[in-house]
């Protein structure tokens, strides 16, 4: 279980996170929604330690993440980045097997390659793609390779940062279904950041809305449409009028 208590983060004069309180139960898929520039990605990066939060605490299974052994902590995570973040200089299979070829989970090269090809197959990519370079792939294929890399070492917790941004609706649907299937199949805890409501409905067990640096609302996906919270209602219906300023 991941617990955030009073987490704040400021960049210069911009107070991005103003006291985030959130619990992500083990084995559940939590989706964070919110407008662009509201600090969703910063929140995710604070949990991973890619950005250091100013105040507040973040715990993983009760242990403060800032005091945990870094390698052991990160070994529990997989992450799909918004743009894929594939390493240009490495072939597709080397990207997927990156963690399997280094560190404590290191496997022989051939075994790592076989696992990578299996994970590529799991996300709907043919074995022939394994020897291509990321620049030779379409955006949708890069996202799938990123997904394969995120699940390659079978992590307990998977983060997805805007998994469907920049994809056509059909490819976005494919990615959403894959994420749901993989999370259910692996029993992993998932945290997804998105403002794509189709993704939210496809992926989420629980939803939290981040606005103005705090969690404005959180609840099960079944309550999303019926909650009277004006922020949530404005956001999910895409209304220009409401408590959230259209121009920020």
């Amino acid at each position, binding site marked *: 279980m991941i617990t955030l208590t009073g987490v704040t983060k400021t960049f210069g004069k911009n107070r991005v996170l103003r006291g985030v309180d959130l619990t992500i139960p083990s084995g559940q898929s939590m989706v964070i929604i919110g407008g662009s520039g509201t600090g969703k990605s910063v929140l995710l*990066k604070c949990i991973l330690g890619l950005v250091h939060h100013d105040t507040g605490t973040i715990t993983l299974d009760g242990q403060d993440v800032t005091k945990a052994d870094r390698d052991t902590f990160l070994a529990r995570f997989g992450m799909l980045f*918004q*743009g894929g*973040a594939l390493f240009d200089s490495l072939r597709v299979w080397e990207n997927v097997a990156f963690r399997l070829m*280094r560190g404590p989970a290191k496997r022989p090269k051939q075994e790592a390659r076989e696992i990578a090809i299996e994970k590529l197959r799991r996300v709907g990519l043919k074995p022939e793609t394994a020897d291509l370079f990321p620049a030779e792939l379409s955006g949708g294929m890069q996202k799938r390779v990123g997904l394969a890399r995120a699940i390659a070492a079978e992590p307990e917790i998977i983060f997805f940062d805007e998994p469907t941004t920049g994809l056509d609706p059909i490819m976005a649907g494919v990615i959403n279904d894959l994420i749901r299937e993989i999370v259910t199949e692996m029993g992993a805890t998932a945290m997804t950041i998105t403002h794509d409501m189709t993704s939210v409905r496809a992926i989420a067990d629980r939803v939290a809305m981040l606005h103005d640096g705090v969690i404005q609302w959180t609840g099960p996906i079944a309550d999303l449409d019926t909650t009277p919270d004006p922020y949530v209602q404005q956001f999910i219906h895409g209304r220009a009028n409401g408590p959230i300023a259209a121009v920020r």
Partner: protein
Amino acid sequence: MTALTAPLAALGRPVLAALAAIGRVAFFAATVIGHIFRPPFYPREFLQALMQIGWFSLPVVGLTAVFTGGALALQIYSGGARFNAEAVVPSIVAIGMVRELGPVLGGLMVAARVASSIAAEIGTMKVTEQIDALVTLSTNPIKYLAVPRVLAATLAVPVLVAVGDAIGIAGGWLVGVNRLGFNSTTYLQNTVDFLETWDVVSGLWKGAAFGFIVALMGCYHGMNSGRGAQGVGAATKSAVVGASVLILAANYILTELFFSA
């Protein structure tokens, strides 16, 4: 009071910013050096960097050296003619190349070619979140990206300097024999007679220092690149300018250390 202190504050701000930048670069350098001797090691990345920095820089360093050696021979000949010292051309070309021009021009050419490419590559990795991805994959970006490049440049640039020295001397010989009427055997004999081991070795030490500076500046500015194409462009420019200025400053300091009486 404000009117009195404003000029001081205006002067102090850039000084403080410059000191802070020096501190950050020094801290980065210390971190890189600290990681060189601690596992994990990345031999594949090191060998790739060695090829990129060493082998692929040979043509540009060689061309720079051959033209510099030739021009140096012409200059010394015409200057030496004023006091009947044309005969010193071979020895001055050799000493000038191995002590100064070989390492400095080689270092500057490598700075232009390598510091820019390292900064652009790592800067692009930063803005496309590839460096964040490395961290989430339990890989230290300094160890994986900076250490192999810094180590490779520190080892490769002295070799480039040695090759550049030889080509530069050959350039001087070509001009000396074909253009200035020197006897080939005499020219080469004078070169060998007047050149001391320390002349060559000091230039190689300079090359190692310049290689370290080039890769360090490329990695530092790449990893601290701003957002977007503009940020990567600015990082690339800063890497080349920073490396070039530091090479020239380091050259003076090393020359003082090596040759001051």
